[in-house]
């Protein structure tokens, strides 16, 4: 069942001659973990802003086409642009790239409570929901900490927990790890993976770190100058190293190894029926190499 359906979406920022997104069509299934990638300026953030309603609710510009949100209610799907930003919060949780700008409360538990208060949740239920959101993000121990004292990775997990408390069906995250160190990045991605697997939350994330996300995601979408250049499951899209090279997106090392093995004549062409699947992780690459020896 589709969760988000994007139809012929074209968007231009004010006073920009060329559109930041051009005729984008994309259907995102409920429960999917989808990674949007591409070079800087390819339009990743713009696409996410159209999905989470920041465009048109906060960012002006010219919008054509539609982004449909399936609310799984009898009234069916609605264009995101028609649902007010606070209303959208119940369906789509948005996490932005900078950990500072999105945290509004001095204490972690107040930050989690904020969305619950806004959506009129009964205060008697709040403690449980705060505890659950924090536990799901692996940060129960931070509950009473001052938000200003947290590391970047902790702040991003607080930001995720804060939107998660509203029980959204979809999480939209714009480079949530761009300002984080490797440990923080790993912790945040692990949380997203578990939310997707255990709670069936649709994850839509813009990231440059394809290597880390390939083993976690269902689908990769490569953007080029506001258009979808390539999309599919990671093992499929990694069959096209030249497109990655052309777009300036780094092909993960395990996939590069597979291509090198083909070139060396050790492996059959990767699209032939007897070729092994492209490895996504170092472990898979190791297993493949071992089989060959």
């Amino acid at each position: 069942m589709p969760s988000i359906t994007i139809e012929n979406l074209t968007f231009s920022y004010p006073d920009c001659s060329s559109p930041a997104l051009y005729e984008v069509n994309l259907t995102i299934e409920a429960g999917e973990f989808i990674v949007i990638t591409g070079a800087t300026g390819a339009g990743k953030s713009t696409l996410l802003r159209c999905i989470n309603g920041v465009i048109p609710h906060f960012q002006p510009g010219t919008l054509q086409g539609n982004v449909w949100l399936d609310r799984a209610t009898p009234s069916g799907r609605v264009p995101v642009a028609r649902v007010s930003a606070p209303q959208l919060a119940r369906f789509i949780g948005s996490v932005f790239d900078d950990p500072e700008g999105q945290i509004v409360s001095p204490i972690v538990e107040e930050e989690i409570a904020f969305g619950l208060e806004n959506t009129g949740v009964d205060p008697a239920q709040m403690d449980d929901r705060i505890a659950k959101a924090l536990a799901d993000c692996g940060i129960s121990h931070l509950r009473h900490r001052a938000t200003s004292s947290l590391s970047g990775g902790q702040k991003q997990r607080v930001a995720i927990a804060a939107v998660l408390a509203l029980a959204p069906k979809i999480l939209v995250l714009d480079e949530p790890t761009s300002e984080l160190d490797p440990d923080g990045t790993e912790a945040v991605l692990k949380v997203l993976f578990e939310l997707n697997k255990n709670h069936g939350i649709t994850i839509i994330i813009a990231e440059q770190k394809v290597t880390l996300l390939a083993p976690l995601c269902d689908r990769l979408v490569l953007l080029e100058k506001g258009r979808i250049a390539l999309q599919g499951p990671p093992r499929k899209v990694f069959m096209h190293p030249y497109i990655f090279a052309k777009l300036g997106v780094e092909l993960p090392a395990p996939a590069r190894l597979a291509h090198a093995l083909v070139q060396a004549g050790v492996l059959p062409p990767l699209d032939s029926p007897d070729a092994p699947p492209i490895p996504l992780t170092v472990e898979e690459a190791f297993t493949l190499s071992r089989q060959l020896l």
Partner: protein
Amino acid sequence: MSVSIEYIPTGSPVHRLHALTKLIFALAVLTISMLLSQPLPLLLLFFSLLGIAALASVSQEILSAVKGLLKVAFFLALLQVFFYPEGTVLFAPIPSLPGLSVTDQGIIFGISMALRMMVIVTSFLLFLTTTPARSTVLSLVEYLKVPYDYAFLFITALRFIPTFLEEVRLIGQAQEARAHDFSGGGPLARLKTIFPLALPLVMISLQRAERMAMAMETRGFGLPGRTYYRTEKPGAVDIMVIVALLSAVAAAVLLRF
């Protein structure tokens, strides 16, 4: 001076007061400082603010801001001293220009003016460093029924005070260096010189408010029927402080008229 002043969580008794109480405090100090015309009471008021800053454990930040303020205050005092026409003439630096003479009342007026500015700015800095922006927005919306777009604007404007003063000081220095008469041209001309410099800073400030509005609205802020995790109602201490503040304002009004 930093570009903007931020909430500093120290958990002091001042921090624990309700945002509304602290807002009333800043406004009461503003009113009282307007009613006082003598340097001494204004100086006393100023030192009590520093005392409160110490109580709130934000002295360091406030003092560094005050240091920046001193220069602006000095300019302000100087301007008043030279251009205040009334009172007994103490001396005239340029005999052919009687308008520039220094009078006893001019000195008092200049010093009071400078102190008043320091008092007002310091009280708002105290408010900003001890109150999270979120609580201010909530108080404005919930208690004072301010539409929340305006509440965000208010926060932005407040945060912008130190930046703006710093700008004024820099412009003053630059004009001094170029041997410009700072008072040259009307207030409009002066504003024109400040404007292009201040504009990018206003933009940054507005962007930040916009980002905060986005962070809040994408989490449901603005929906009807808001509930409260912990009732953020003003407590007994808050009521006492507010009553004391209002009495002080009333006393100042009575003394003045």
